[in-house]
Every structure is written in structure tokens, then in C-alpha cells.
């Protein structure tokens, strides 16, 4: 425990000189989780909700925004308190912060986006158990200043969110023929109306979310060769 603390102190004392808000290092905090360090495709975290809320674009988008709110604010709070949090109860403190923020998000959704909150049902509550969030609190916010922590939170949430949105885009388009609830596949194409096309019902089911995420991982590894493990 002591050496962790020492390492932490060393880290914070190293960064005493003032650096610009969007220095190269800070920009990296946002961009790395979008690609090379993506929480879903590289770290394979937060898969449960990625499978569950991506049948339609709208809930996936709201989920991404919710996680971003929880992670951005949470990282800031934890980072601001980092020197006062007793290491022995730090996990409890982190959980309390996450839980409080998630309840707030849930209440706000119930007040202003009731339909979507019903669709997301238990998954808003399950943001609490999203390992990405506690992972960032523990690995980053506990050891870094407020501004970098905020960027790291937003970056990771967006890294999670864009995968969700891409998966939802394909699932809604191929599974329901709609995007954001609007019909995009022309009605005349459907077999019922004398056409040749039918929605792929399997896209609606969770297994296809896993396969879609798998395809994204495949494409990413094809384009970024460093991610491929040796052996």
C-alpha cells in the first residue's frame, strides 16, 4: 500500500509546471480510448450493457450520454478528493460516488425522457456495475489532477459510446429497417408489399450484438497491427 502512495505522490509532484489545457498529452487522453485503448474493443469491458441496449439507436445514444455524464463528473469528483480519500475505504468512496451519480441520471431520465428510460429499464441502474467506470476512477482519477481526469473520463465514455452507437446503427438498420425510429428501408421493398426484402430478426437478438462487436474488433485489428498478440 505504501509504495502505491509513494508512486502517487511522485506522479503528482512531477506535474507541477503548468501545461496548456489541450497539450499533446491531454489530447491523447481523449483520443486513445477512441481507438488504441478502446474500453470495449481492446479492453473488452462493459460488454453486458453493450449487448443489451444496442437494438435501437436512441437508447444506445442515451446510454452513451448517461455513461459520459457519470464518468466525466465522477472522475472530476474523485480526482478533486483524491488526497483526502483514505486508501483503506477508497473503493467504497468510489462506489458511493458512482451510485449517487447513476441515481441522479436515472431520476433525470425518468423526468425528461420517460420513454427512453423505460426502454433502458435496469441498464441505467447497471451503469453502477460498469467496470469501465470504476476502472478509470481507480487507475486514473485517484492519481491525476482534475482536468486530465475529466478528459480521461470523457474520452473513455466516448470510446464506449461510439462503439454502442455503431453497433446500434447496424442492428436497427438491418433488424428493424429503421434509424432512430424512422423508416429508412422503403416500404415497397418488403415481401409483404410485393417486394424482395425482409428484416433480419436475428439482428434484434443479443447474440448479433456480440458478433457485430466482434466484427468491429476484427476491422480494428486489421488496421492496427500492434494490437495483435503474438503466438
Amino acid at each position, binding site marked *: 500500500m505504501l509504495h502505491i502512495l509513494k508512486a502517487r505522490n511522485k506522479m503528482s509532484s512531477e506535474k507541477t509546471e503548468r501545461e496548456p489545457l489541450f497539450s499533446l498529452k491531454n489530447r491523447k487522453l481523449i483520443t486513445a480510448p477512441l481507438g488504441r485503448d478502446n474500453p470495449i474493443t481492446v479492453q473488452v469491458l462493459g460488454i453486458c450493457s453493450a449487448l*443489451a441496449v444496442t437494438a435501437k439507436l436512441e437508447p444506445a445514444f442515451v446510454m452513451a450520454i448517461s455513461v459520459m455524464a457519470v464518468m466525466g463528473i465522477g472522475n472530476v469528483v474523485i480526482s478533486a478528493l483524491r488526497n*483526502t*480519500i*483514505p*486508501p*483503506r*475505504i477508497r473503493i*467504497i*468512496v468510489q462506489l*458511493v460516488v458512482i451510485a*449517487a451519480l447513476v*441515481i*441522479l441520471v436515472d*431520476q*433525470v431520465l*425518468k*423526468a*425528461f425522457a*420517460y*420513454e427512453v428510460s*423505460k426502454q433502458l*429499464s*435496469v*441498464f441505467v441502474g447497471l451503469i453502477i456495475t460498469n467496470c469501465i467506470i470504476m476502472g478509470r476512477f481507480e487507475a486514473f482519477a485517484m492519481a491525476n489532477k482534475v482536468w486530465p481526469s475529466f478528459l480521461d473520463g470523457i474520452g473513455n465514455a466516448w470510446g464506449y459510446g461510439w462503439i454502442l452507437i455503431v453497433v446500434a446503427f447496424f442492428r436497427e438498420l438491418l433488424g428493424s429497417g429503421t434509424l432512430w425510429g424512422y423508416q429508412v428501408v422503403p416500404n415497397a421493398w418488403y415481401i409483404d408489399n410485393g417486394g424482395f426484402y425482409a428484416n433480419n430478426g436475428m439482428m434484434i437478438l*443479443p447474440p448479433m450484438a456480440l458478433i457485430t462487436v466482434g466484427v468491429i474488433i476484427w476491422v480494428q485489428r486489421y488496421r492496427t497491427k500492434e494490437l495483435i498478440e503474438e503466438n
Partner: protein
Amino acid sequence: MFSNRYIFIYSSVMVIIVAAILSSAAMILKPYQERNIAIAKIQGILMAAEIEASTENAESLFDQVILEELVIRQDGKVTGRFSKGQLTDGKDRAFDLNLKTELYNKKQGKPYRVPLYIAEANGGKIYIIPLLGKGLWGPIYGNIALKEDMNTVFGAEFGNDKETPGLGAEISDRAFALQFLDKTIFNETGKFVSITVKKGGVGTMPAADRIHGVDAISGGTITSDAVTKMIDNCLSNYVAYFKSQE
């Protein structure tokens, strides 16, 4: 290092601050949430009457479609009438009755009242009955509409808060509710038999009972059974009223 005293004080202060933030947020947001819940209730009632309403037009559609709201006592007597925006009999509007409290009173053996909505559809009257019950993880609810004969199902709609997604939560699916169309709640001798959500499918029921059954959800047996119980518990309150109307 931090002392034990510090840790205790730190956690107590943290908990108090978080509690204050959460409770004030809940108080501020309550009116908005209650309005949403009322609109969802209206949408549910209209859905059972096979009318799809959006958040914006739900209230005006409800005023158009619903002819009368009745408050019905446990012995089948009407103790309240509300129609065309006016209370014509009794003290309470049926829409404002808290079904949860009334069903609790029923369980306790105390007097209770239940709401009934009468609407017009396809030239005939339909009777819409709100449902409320206990699912596997939380409340389940719905509405069931009966045709003018007070026996055949005109439409149904179900909802849930916390049932398992993909399993029990499938009761909210339109396909599940559509199974209820044209089922009957009284058998040919006029006895109340309700509608059973049958595990293994309607096909496993005796041929004569199939008109009183629908298929259960695979992997959602407890929720399916809860729906059976909810329908029986809620519809049985109206039997005395229906008999008195014949």
C-alpha cells in the same frame, strides 16, 4: 496514513452529503416524473382499447374516447361516476384511485374500490380494467379491455419495471398481449375462470379450456405465473358488477 477517526468522520460526512443531494434531486424532479407516469397510465388504458397514443395527444385522446369512469365497490355497486370532465356521482374520480392501496385493502380483508373505464370502440361499448400485480423482481401492470358482452377480450397491454430483459420482460411485448384477443373470462356455465398464462403452451390444455388460456413466455415462468395471478386477482373484483349488469 489516515486514522480510524478520520475514516469514520470522512465516511459519515460523505454519506450525509450524498443523501442530501439525492433527496433534493428527487423532490425537484417529482412533479415531472408524476406527469410522465400519469401519461403512461393513459397510454396503457388507450393501448388496451387498441388506440396508440403519443405523449402529446394522450390526454386529449383519453377525453375523447373514454365515455365514463366508474368507481366500483367490492360488492359490485357503483359508488362513483365521472364523465365528460365532470363528477356526476360519488366523491372520487376513478382515474385517481390508487390501485395498489385498494388491492392491499382487499388482501387485508378490508373494503375496497376499483376503477373501470368505459369507452366506445367499433360502435360498441368496451370495458377497460387496469391490472396490477407482483412479478419476479418488481411490479407488473397492464390493462385489459372486454367487449360489450363483458366476457370476450377486446384488447390487452402489459408492462413491467424490473423483469429479466429477454425473458420475463417479454410480457411487455405486443405479440404477448395480442394472444389475449378474443379469449373469454367466463366459461359456458357463466362461472368466472379468468385467463391462464399456460407454461408449455395452450396446446397442453384441455380443448374446452383453450379459449381461457394463452402461451407462457419461455424462460419466464415466474413472470408468466405472476400475470395469471394478476389477471385473476384484478378481474375477479368486477365479477359482481358484471353479473349485476346482465
